[in-house]
């Protein structure tokens, strides 16, 4: 990224992740401090009206952030936002992608807007977001 300026339409982010397991959700519960039982306790999830536990939205956004910082140094990210479009189920194998949509001047520097998506193995969009990065 430091050597070349991206162009609108460039797909600069692309990463695939292994299927989400119950074990991963348990680890994320501890590692993130988000102890909401709905993600790890099937009894609680069923009582809340869900067929099973499901992934933390922030685990999925964490994967998207990882895909983003594979392409862009963390120090160059000015903002990072995401809408949680659908629940991410157990077993989901996620693909994170990001495409440059606009080059802008903001805060006295050249920046790019990057449209971000996370899809599961069926192509369903789980997260739709945007990052603004300094070039």
């Amino acid at each position, binding site marked *: 990224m430091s050597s070349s300026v991206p162009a609108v339409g460039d797909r600069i982010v692309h990463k695939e*992740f*292994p299927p989400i397991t119950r074990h*991963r959700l348990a*680890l*994320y519960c*501890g*590692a*993130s*401090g*988000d*102890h*909401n*039982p*709905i993600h790890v306790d099937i009894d*609680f999830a069923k*009582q*809340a009206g869900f067929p099973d536990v499901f992934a*933390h*939205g*922030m*685990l999925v*956004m*964490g*994967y998207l*952030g*990882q895909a*983003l*910082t*594979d392409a862009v*140094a*963390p*120090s160059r*990210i*000015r*903002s*990072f*936002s*995401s*809408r*949680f479009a659908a*629940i991410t189920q157990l077993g989901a194998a996620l693909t994170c992608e990001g495409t440059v949509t606009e080059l802008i001047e903001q805060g006295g520097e050249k920046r790019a807007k990057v449209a971000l998506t996370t899809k599961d193995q069926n192509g369903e969009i789980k997260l739709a977001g945007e990052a603004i990065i300094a070039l």
Partner: protein
Amino acid sequence: MVDQSAVGRTFTPVTARVEPGRLRFFLDTLGETNAVYRDGAAAPVPPTYLFCLEMMDAPDAFEFLTALGIDLARVLHGEQRFDYHAPVVVGDTLTFRPRVTSVTEKKGGAMTLIVVETAVTNQAGVHVADTSRTIVVRNARPS
């Protein structure tokens, strides 16, 4: 049900330290192998880690739900935003100050969207980030 009177409510500020061991647990959990995060003293934190720090060191991670009378089982995460103003690195001590900035009813009251914005400052008083989370409350249907 949460209404407009909740707008402006603030909650107990949370102070959290970016500890290398806890950060390593997070990185390992996500299978993160990027060397930039394991670069020792001044390693940056991953872009979503501020959300975790606030929950990890809060005396009650769900204080705002309790305070607003919301059942945890009825909550989903709708949106999340981070605006980064200055670097956050291993060893920093951060203070999070959350407040409710909007309450919106959707689908004829079937859902309520609550936005909580949090200003984050570091040990030097530098305003390093703002975060914004939108919580979706699935309201009970009237019987």
